C-alpha cells in the first residue's frame, strides 16, 4: 500500500515540477518566475522526503532540512532585488 502511495506521490510532485518549469519559462511577469522557482524548491523538498521514505534512510531528511532553511533566502533576495535593486541596504 505504501509503495502505491509513494508512487502516486512521486507522480504528483514530478508533474508539479513540470508545471513549475512551464511557469519559469513562460510567465507574464518576473515575479511569477521567482515564485515558480520557490515552489520548485518546496516540491524538491517533498520529493527528497518521499525518496527518504522509499529508501528507509534518514540521510535525505537532513538534506531536505537544509533546503528548507536556505531555499527561501534566494527567493527573498530576488524579491528584494526586484523591489529595491539593492538587496543589502
Amino acid at each position, binding site marked *: 500500500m505504501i509503495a502505491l502511495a509513494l508512487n502516486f506521490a512521486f507522480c504528483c510532485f514530478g508533474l508539479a515540477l513540470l508545471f513549475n518549469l512551464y511557469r519559469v519559462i513562460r510567465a507574464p511577469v518576473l515575479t511569477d518566475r521567482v515564485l515558480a522557482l520557490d515552489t520548485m524548491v518546496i516540491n524538491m523538498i517533498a520529493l527528497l522526503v518521499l525518496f527518504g521514505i522509499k529508501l528507509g534512510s534518514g540521510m535525505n531528511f537532513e538534506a531536505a532540512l537544509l533546503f528548507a532553511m536556505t531555499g527561501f*533566502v534566494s527567493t527573498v533576495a530576488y524579491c528584494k532585488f526586484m523591489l*529595491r535593486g539593492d*538587496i543589502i541596504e
Partner: protein
Amino acid sequence: MASGVVAGKQGHSALTGLAFAPDKGRARTTGQPAATRTTAHNQNGNRPGMSLALIAALPFLGALLPGLMIRAGRTACAVSTGAVTALALLLLGLNAPAVLRGEVVQTRIEWLPQLGLNANFMLDGLGLLFAGLILGIGLLIILYARFYLAKADPMGQFYTYLMLFQGAMLGIVLSDNILLLLVFWELTSLSSFLLIGYWKHLPEGRQGARMALTVTGAGGLALIGGMLILGNIAGSYDLSVILTQKVAIQSSDWYLPALLLILLGCFTKSAQFPFHFWLPHAMAAPTPVSAYLHSATMVKAGLFLMARLWPVLAGTPEWFYIVATTGLVTMLLGAKIALFKHDLKALLAFSTVSQLGLITMLLGFGTKAAATVAVFHIINHATFKAALFMTAGIVDHEAHTRDIRRLGGLRVLMPVTFAIATLAALSMAGIPPLNGFLSKELMLEEAAHTVWWQNPWLVGVLATIGALFSVAYSFRFVAHVFLGPMRDDYPHRPHDPGFGLWAAPALLAGLVVLIGLAPMATAAWLVDAAAGAVTGAAVEVKISHWHGLEPAALWMSLAAIGGGLMLLGLFAPLSRLWEGTPRPEAKRIFDGLVEPLATLSRRITDALHDGAVTRYFAIATLAILAAGVWAFVSGTHQQGDHALTPVALVPAAGWALLMVTTCAIVALHRQRLLVLILVGVVGLMVSVGFAYLSAPDLALTQISVEVATVILLLLALNYLPKTTPAESGGARRLRDGVIATLAGLGAGGLIYALMTRDFAFDTIAAYHLANAKTEGGGTNVVNVILVDFRGYDTFGEITVLGIAALVIYALTESILRPGPANDRLRLWKAESQDAGDRHPLMLVVATRLILPLAIMVGVFIFLRGHNLPGGGFIAGLVVAIALVMQYMASGFEWTAARQKIDYHALIASGVLVAAATGIGAWFNGLPFMTSAYGYVTLWPLETFELATAALFDLGVFLTVLGAVMLSLASLSRIALRAGETVNLAPYDIDPAAGRTVKEEAR
C-alpha cells in the same frame, strides 16, 4: 679532411714552454695520483662541500640588500653589496687549496631527480678560475660603480641587478648539472638585459638591451636543445658523468647536431661572428656594466662552456673547422672594425670581440697546448680589458665625451689615468714584458703550427694580421686620447678623478704588470689547475719571455708590432677610406630581420588571441574535439557491456527540467535577471541530483553554494546593465552553436561510453573506502578525503579562497577611494523603482528567529562531519547564509555595527589554524598534514572521538565563513558610497511606537 686537423702539436712543447704529464699520472703539487680530472671524480679525492651551493646562492641573497641599504646611503649600499661578494670570494678561497691539489669539490642536492635535474655543484680548476674572476672583478666593479654612478641614478637598483647577474654567472661556472647550468644561462641573459637597459631613459640602452636579449636568448634556446641531446647520449645530465663519455658522444650520430646547437649557444653569448653585432650595441650600458660583462662575465660564459665541454666535444674535424675558423674570422673582423671606431667604448667593444675570437680559435685548435694558452689568455684579457673599460669610463666621466676625435693630450691633465690606461693598452697590444705579450706570443706559436685545410701557413699569417690590428687599435687608444697636444675645446675640462674611481683599474694594471713580470709565481699555478680541468690531463705550464731566436712567434710578434705602428701612422688616410666604403649596418639588418618576425608573431597572436573569450573557447573546444575524434577514429572500440538502467518517472522529469532550462538559458541569455533565475533551477536540480545519486555531502554543499552565489550575483547585478547587448552576427552565432553542439554531443558520448563498460584501471575509491576509518579516523569518506587524504589540496584551496575574498575587498576599497571609478559610482543612479519597505518587519523577525537555528544546524553539521555527511565547508556556508540574512533584513550599517569579529581576522585565523594543525604532525614525527585521532570519555558524555582532522576542518570553517562574508560585505559597501541612507533601527516601521523610524543620510 681529417688530415688537416693534425695540428702538429704533440712534440714542439720545448718552444712554447708547455709541458704535459699525462703519462706520468701525477699532479704537480702533491704527487697524488689524480692525473685526470675525469678519473678524479671517481676517486676519494672528491670532497663534499656544502659551501658551493652557498657561494652560488650568496649573490642572489645579496641582491636583496642594496634595495634596503640604499636608504642608509650610497656608501653603505656599496659596502654591503661588496661584503656579500667578498664573503662569497672568501668561501671560494677556502675551497681553493683542495682544488689546487687536484681535487674536485662537489655539492649534491636532489631537486627533481625524476627529470635528472639536481642542484649539483662542482668546483674544479676551471670553475675556480672563473668564479675567482667573477667575484674578484665583481668586487672591483662594485667599488668602481660606487663612484661612477651619478647621484640621480638609482644605485640600489643597479647593485641588485649586478648581484643577480653575478649569481647567475657563478651558477654557470659552478653547476655540475647541465640542466641547472641552462637555468643559470638563461638567468644571465635576463639579468644582463636589466643591466644593459639600466639607463631606461636612453633609447639606445633599451634597444641594445633588447638586441642582446634576443640574440643571447635565441642562442640559449639552441643551447637547451644541444644540451638535452648531449645528456641523452651520455645517459646523464651531470657534467661529471658527461665528461667521461667522450667516445660515446663523438661516435654518436647525434654528435654533429648537438655540437652545432651548443656552439650556437656559445657563439651568440660570446659574440662570435656572425653574432658579434650585439656586443657593441650593449655599450649603451653604464661603463661598470660594460667592464664587467666584457672582461669577466657574460661574453666569457660562451668561452667557459666551450672549455667545459672541451674534453668531450673537441678534437674532431667538425670542432676544429667550425670553432677555429669562427674564432679566426671573429678575431680579424673585430680587430679591423675596432681600429676605425671613434667611440672609446665601441673601440674596446670590438677589441673584446676580437680577443674573444682569439680565445675561441685557441680552443678550436683542439690541442692541449692551445687550450692551455686559451686559459692563460682568459686571465690576461680579464685583467687588462676590465682596466681599459674603467679608464674609458673615467675619461667619459671627466671629459664628458667618449669621442676619440674630441680627445687627445690628456696625459698632462690626467697622469694617473694615463699611466693605468697605457699599461693596460700595451698589454693588449702584446708588448713585453706585460702579461698580454706572454699569452699573445704563445697564441702566435700555436697558430704557426696549425694546418688549415692542408695549408700550413694560412692560420699563422692571419693570426699575425689580427695581432697587427690589435697593436694598432691599442696604440690608437693611448695615442689619440692621451698623447698629442693638449686641447682647449674639451666638453668639460678633465682632471684625474678621486682615488675611489681609479683604485680598481690601478689594481688591475698592477696585476697586468705582476703577471707579466713573474708569470710563474702569479699565474702559472692557476693556469695549471684550470687547464688541467679543461683538458683532463695534468698540465705543467712554463711561461717565459724569451724562447730564443728560432721560434716563429718572436718574428710574428715583431711583425705585428711593426706593422701595427705603421698602420697607426697611416690612420688618417685609412680612416677616410674606411668611412668611404659602404659596410653592412648590423643594427639595420637586425631590425630588418626582427621587425617582420615580430609582425608575423603579432599577427598569429592577434588571430588566436583577440580578446574575445568566445574565440578562445572556440579554438580550445575545436582542438579538444579534434583530439577526441582522432582518438575515436584511430582506436578500436566495442559496444559497452553494461546494461542500461530503467528510467524512472521523477528522474525523467528532473532530466526534462535540466534540458529545458539549459536551452532556455541559451535562448534568453540577454535578460540577465531571468537567466539568474533559470540558473537557480539548474542549481536546484544538480543539488537534488546529488542527493538522489547518494552524494549527500555534495547535495548539502551545492545548495548552500547556490544561495551564496545568487546573493553575490544579485549584489553585483545591481550595478550592471540588466541586459546583455547583442554583439555577434547570425553567422558567428551559428558557428558557435555548431561547435558547442558538437562538443556537447562528444562529451555526452564519452560519458555514455565510460558508463557502459568497466574502467580500464581500478578506481581509487576502493582505497579511500578501505582506509578512511583506519588512517583518517572517520567514516565519512568524502570528509576524510577533504581533510586528510587530500588535506594538502584543501589547505591550498582555502588559502586561495581567502585570497580571493581579500582581492574582492581590495577592489571594492579602490572603488570607494576618490578616483575615476569612484566618480562613476557617484554618477550612478539606481534604475529600480523604490517600492515597499527597505527593512520589512516580517523579514527582520523571521531572520532573527532563524539565526540561532541556523547556527545550531551549522555546529551540528560541522561536528558530525567527520563520520556522516557534513563538515567545515558546508557549516561555514550555512552560518554565512544565516548572517547574510541579517544584513538583508536590517541593512548593512545596522548589522555591521553589531558584528564584532573582523572578517579579515576570521580568514587569517582559519588559514592559520589549518596550517598549525598540519604542522602539528611534525611534532609527532610524521609528515605535514598527517592526522591523528583518539577516543576520549568525558563525564557525563559517552565516549567520543577527537581527531586533529576536526581542528583542520575548523580552519576550513572559519576561512569559508570569513571569505563569504567579506566578499558579500565588500559588495554591499558599494551601495553606501552611491548615496544611500543609513538606518539607525533594525526596521523601518516600529509598530510599538506606531511611526516610521528616522533615517540618516550619509
